[in-house]
């Protein structure tokens, strides 16, 4: 196979996948507005997705916050600007680090779990059995997971932000020797509408990205256990990359919209 053919095949597959993902997303959004709500399933997923990811988010937040605070404090000390540490950490964590790190953690843990679960159900003909019993598998499986993600990801992002700021505070006070009052006052200065809006909008968008990709990959998986494994890997990679790309565009576009509030 020539390089040209390989490139051609890659583009064809990419276009095919994008088209399928688009149509799947339309079906998923359509299912939100159809009759019947699976409240119990949604609550169960909120627990599994949200509470189950809490330790991961806490650990990520505390160490990322400390790491960044340490790196910034050294640089700021050179300029005699250590007092700005709280301000920088507040912007970095709320706008970027918190949403992206939580999103990536979710892409790794939750997207993998959702894809593997749906893929295994498909492989065992459980999805077919559902359809045979007159149940829409997208409504029953994908919608509760999407709702759970949309609710839990922003909440965990807020927790991640808070923990990261706390981790940064430890470094600020005990390593950089910034007073606690100065640090929190600088943090509070940047807790303004624009930053909070971006910081909370991102996880909502990321949650849809993760849900669409994870569910789509699960439903589209084929080829038994090997196929489920491949779908799971693709789901995590695709969700992670998409989160980073979407994050850039949100920052770029929304930043220009709400410049006046920053």
């Amino acid at each position, binding site marked *: 196979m020539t390089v040209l053919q390989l490139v051609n095949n890659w583009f064809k597959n990419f276009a095919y996948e994008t088209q399928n993902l688009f149509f799947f997303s339309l079906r998923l959004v359509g299912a939100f507005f159809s009759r019947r709500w699976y409240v119990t399933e949604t609550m169960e997923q909120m627990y599994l997705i949200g509470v189950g990811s809490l330790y991961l988010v806490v650990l990520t937040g505390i160490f990322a916050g400390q790491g960044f605070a340490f790196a910034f404090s050294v640089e700021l000390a050179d300029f005699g600007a250590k007092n700005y540490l709280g301000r920088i950490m507040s912007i970095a964590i709320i706008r970027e680090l918190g949403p992206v790190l939580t999103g990536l953690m979710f892409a790794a843990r939750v997207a993998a779990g959702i894809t593997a679960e749906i893929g295994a159900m498909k492989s*065992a*003909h*459980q999805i*077919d*059995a559902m*359809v*045979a*019993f*007159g*149940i829409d598998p997208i409504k029953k499986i994908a919608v509760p997971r999407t709702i759970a993600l949309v609710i839990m990801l922003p909440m965990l992002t807020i927790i991640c932000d808070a923990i990261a700021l706390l981790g940064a505070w430890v470094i600020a006070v005990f390593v950089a020797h910034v007073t606690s009052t100065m640090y929190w006052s600088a943090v509070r200065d940047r807790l303004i509408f624009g930053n909070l809006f971006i910081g909370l909008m991102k996880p909502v968008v990321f949650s849809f990205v993760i849900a669409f990709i994870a569910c789509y990959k699960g439903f589209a998986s084929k080829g038994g256990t090997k196929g489920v494994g491949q779908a799971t890997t693709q789901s995590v990679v695709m969700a992670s990359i998409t989160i980073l790309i979407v994050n850039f565009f949100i920052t770029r576009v929304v930043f220009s919209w709400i410049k006046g509030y920053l």
Partner: protein
Amino acid sequence: MIELRHVHFAYDTQPVLRDVSFLVDDSEAVVIMGPSGSGKSTILRLILGLDCPREGEILVDHKDVGRLGRGPLREIRKKIGMVFQDGALFDSLTVGENVGYYLIEHTKLKWDEIERRARAMLGFVGLEADEVIDKLPDQLSGGMRRRVAIGRALLSTEPQIMLYDEPTTGLDPYATHNIINLINKLHRERSISSIVVTHQIADAFAVAKRFIVIYRGEVAFDGSLEELRECRDERVEDFLAPFRASMKGVFERKFVDGAAPE
């Protein structure tokens, strides 16, 4: 009544069924046989409307399932009970919840009533309800899982048509014998039309007196046991060749609950 008229089907570019036509009358039991990968299970999926034919018509009670919308298709599916390969039980639900799945999803019956009906159904399919009702499918043997799957299909909508996909594959002789008796009992007591897909010749002769041989996606034979014995079609001979030696014994095989139904 189920009728397939000149049905063609393909997965992507891979043809699976070519010009398949046959008719199954009300209360008739038919076995579809053929080598693995010949398209037998695909026929069941098409009848259930899980896949759409490329060409041709699939009529269930005079309605073409390939052209029905979601609502009418759901109504048609209510008339059909499907037993998937390996049962396709929902592995996160208990046996009781699996058997009562349709009632849980589509009715407002209280759990006590659903459990009562599930227990009765488990008894009907020959299982000790007290022993199995709270177990997960993983804790059951292969034969028990198939019986639970049959119970689940029966308790759903009291179907007029039962589709069995390889109901005895992978089971020991005792479990196979029990499943065959159950299929025959259902056919006899409830006058349910049955289509049994299998490549186990001995089991095929025990559950029906009409046989359809699918060979490489085509109907190679459609007729009675006697006609099958006399058939000299190359494709049928090729399929039956490994079993010829044991055929005589198979023809005379007797089952506890009586011979195969008309």
